[in-house]
């Protein structure tokens, strides 16, 4: 028993299998029209993934996501680090963050579409907005926790303000920043899907609703599985990266922040 | 009362890093006896106490309390930890009452008994304070009251005064002896201080480390009730302290790092 569960990756695989079995059984017992069994929905996945049009759609979605996420990284991390080292910077940004935290960023989609149209720019902007706050937050926490003594010795070695931020605070806060990055990545995916569900114009989220309207429930569920797999893939991929970069720091408390 | 029979404890931190914390420890403690355990840091004193408490299972051997093998914690054995381990979300009174209330003692009775104990440890004025608002010595007294509340026959005390300053410490030693003199519970008392051990105990057990085992047992033949002021002038007391301290030094030197 302990032997089996200690094989890495096996328990999650078994969990996946278990979830599929539960799904299958539920669908068969209840015989709901809106819940096709897993054995019907899953075969749709290869169909979707070999369809050129939906592949392009998904590629476009992922491209926007990458751009929005990358931009957010460039802006949010420095702000967060700065907030952690200066009480005035923290006092400046904190209330603003509190006010905008509960606003669902994907909900800005209709307004932003009004200004920027339904194209790439709106969707990318929404993803950017969705990811920024948690990134700032985690960088802030990480930089705030950097030991004062590290900075003293850096000053003693003659490092200036910016150099200290870059050479001392950033590496020391890196584990926490990466937690933020991981959270942000999953968030970016969520914002992307949601905003596409709201805009109903293109992308992964749109495919789901188009199939829903067409009554192609198998496809709906297959798409849900695909999106879920993307989330898991990002999560696992990032965890591997994180271990590489900051293997020295033990896995910090990662409380996933879902939804945007 | 307590019979520790051939107890060993091995910790398996990893497949290649096994650590024998206790090796074949045998000791019996009579009813109403006050026994101290001395030994270098890391020799397994706490582990031994936890095993008697039933919190940790031995790798080999067993512990009998009143001829019954220990299978887990029970209200016949009350621990007092070095770290106090008070419930931070409960007031002083709440901490002391917790065990009684959970045990189904009626509220009025639990309240009366808890207040009585708090008076005994001289903390009745602090019953509505939270642990974080107390000094170290006060916290330790609350912890002792909390344990005494459910009337264990055996007290298992792990360096209860270790984290306190010398003055508070001697004060609490006097308090403890005073409380103990009333109903003579069986006490297993871990400490680092030879003086403390001699002052309190009927017997002092010296352990050596890596692996932890009993090195020697000293009978402390001093009259009770004991008073600190008198004992400090007592030649026999001084001899015990010097003798045990010398043995302690030797033991510590032999200990590999």
């Amino acid at each position, binding site marked *: 028993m302990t032997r089996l569960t200690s094989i890495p990756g096996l328990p999650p695989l078994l969990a996946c299998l278990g979830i599929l079995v539960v799904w299958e059984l539920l669908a068969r017992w209840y015989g709901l029209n809106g*819940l096709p069994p897993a054995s019907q929905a899953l075969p749709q996945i290869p169909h979707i993934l070999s369809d050129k049009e939906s592949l392009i759609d998904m590629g476009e979605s992922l491209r926007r996501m990458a751009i929005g996420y990358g931009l957010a990284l460039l802006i949010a991390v420095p702000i967060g680090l700065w907030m952690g080292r200066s009480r*005035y910077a923290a006092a400046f940004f904190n209330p603003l963050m509190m006010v905008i935290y509960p606003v669902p960023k994907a909900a800005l989609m209709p307004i932003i579409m009004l200004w920027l149209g339904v194209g790439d720019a709106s969707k990318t902007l929404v993803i950017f907005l969705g990811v920024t706050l948690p990134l700032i937050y985690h960088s802030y926490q990480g930089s705030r926790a950097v030991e004062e003594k590290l900075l003293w010795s850096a000053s003693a070695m003659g490092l200036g303000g910016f150099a200290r931020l870059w050479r001392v605070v950033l590496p020391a806060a890196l584990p926490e920043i990466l937690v933020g990055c991981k959270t942000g990545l999953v968030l970016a995916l969520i914002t992307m899907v949601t905003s596409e*569900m709201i805009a109903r114009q293109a992308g992964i989220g749109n495919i789901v609703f188009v199939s829903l309207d067409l009554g192609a429930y198998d496809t709906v569920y297959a798409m849900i599985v695909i999106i879920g797999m*993307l*989330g898991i893939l990002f999560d696992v991929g990032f965890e591997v990266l994180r271990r590489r970069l900051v293997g020295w720091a033990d896995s910090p408390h990662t409380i996933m922040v879902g939804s945007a | 009362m307590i019979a520790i029979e051939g107890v060993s404890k091995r910790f398996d931190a990893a497949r290649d890093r096994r650590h024998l914390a206790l090796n074949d420890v045998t000791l019996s403690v009579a009813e109403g006896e006050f026994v101290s355990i001395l030994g270098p840091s890391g020799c397994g004193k706490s582990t031994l106490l936890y095993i008697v408490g039933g919190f940790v299972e031995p790798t080999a051997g067993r512990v009998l309390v009143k001829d019954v093998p220990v299978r887990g914690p029970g*209200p016949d054995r009350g621990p007092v930890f070095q770290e106090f381990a008070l419930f931070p979300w409960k007031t002083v009174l709440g901490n002391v009452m917790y065990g009684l209330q959970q045990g189904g003692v009626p509220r009025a009775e639990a309240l009366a008994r808890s207040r009585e104990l708090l008076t005994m440890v001289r903390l009745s004025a602090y019953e509505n304070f*939270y642990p974080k608002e107390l000094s170290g010595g006060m916290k330790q007294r609350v912890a002792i009251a909390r344990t005494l509340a459910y009337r264990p026959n055996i007290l298992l005390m792990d360096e209860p005064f270790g984290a306190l300053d010398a003055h508070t410490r001697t004060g609490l030693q006097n308090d403890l002896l005073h409380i103990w003199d009333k109903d003579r519970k069986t006490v297993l008392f871990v400490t680092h201080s030879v003086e403390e051990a001699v002052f309190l105990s009927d017997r002092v057990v010296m352990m050596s480390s890596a692996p932890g085992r009993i090195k020697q047992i000293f009978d402390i033949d001093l009259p009770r009730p004991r008073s600190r002021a008198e004992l400090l002038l007592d030649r026999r007391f001084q001899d015990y302290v010097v003798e045990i301290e010398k043995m302690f030094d030797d033991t510590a030197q032999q200990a590999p790092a």
Partner: protein
Amino acid sequence: MNAVRQWSERLIGAVPIIGLLALWQAIAMSGLAPPALLPTPGVVFARFFQQLGSPAFLDHAAVTLYRLFAGFMIAVVMGVTLGIAAVGSRAFAAIVTPVVRVLAPVPKIALYPALTLTLGYDDASKIALVIADAMFPILLATYQGASAVEPKLAWSARAAGVSPVRTLFTVVLPAAMPSVLTGARIGLIISCIVVFLAEMITSTDGLGHLLMRAARNFQTVDMFVPLIAISMLGLMLNALFNLVRRRLLRGFPEEK
């Protein structure tokens, strides 16, 4: 001295919020954007306060609040129970841990179409979505907090003759409370966000629906109002949460 510092920090904090409003006002007045696209903040807030007196608007807000609360509460109960149970029982943990590891990073919003198909377009599907989204941070925080509880606290209870299950709920859970509440706060914010989004995607009532209805009719001012409402709701819930938190954590050492 301390008061002065606190006030100056509050003032500094007000700067970006006021600045943002001022920028908004400036752009709206400069004629860069026509009022149909960007109404002035004055107009928007006037409309917001006017709506606060409108029973129809309040009904929508109440619907949103109900879904949010129902979902959040169920998520708290489920998350805490599962988290504590996983700490209490190894066998249970062996089942729950991998399932959570698989499900936690799944974007729950993607499940929403499935939820509408199985639970209908009404409250149930939205509450279910809130539960699915808010439960995981609470569960993880509870699990982590409870596994980090000093074992001697639990031992102290067990030694007093308290059963393992009771110890779990009377000692381990309260001791893990700071962590549980951290998770619950995240869950609360998520609940706020998720109800709104679900209402935007498909709904006939609630604040999210109001936003979509306004968008369809190109009533720009009315598009801003639900957003302000949800932000205010979030701030209020957060304040309420802090009150509860302070009471629950009275005996714990201050953070930081």
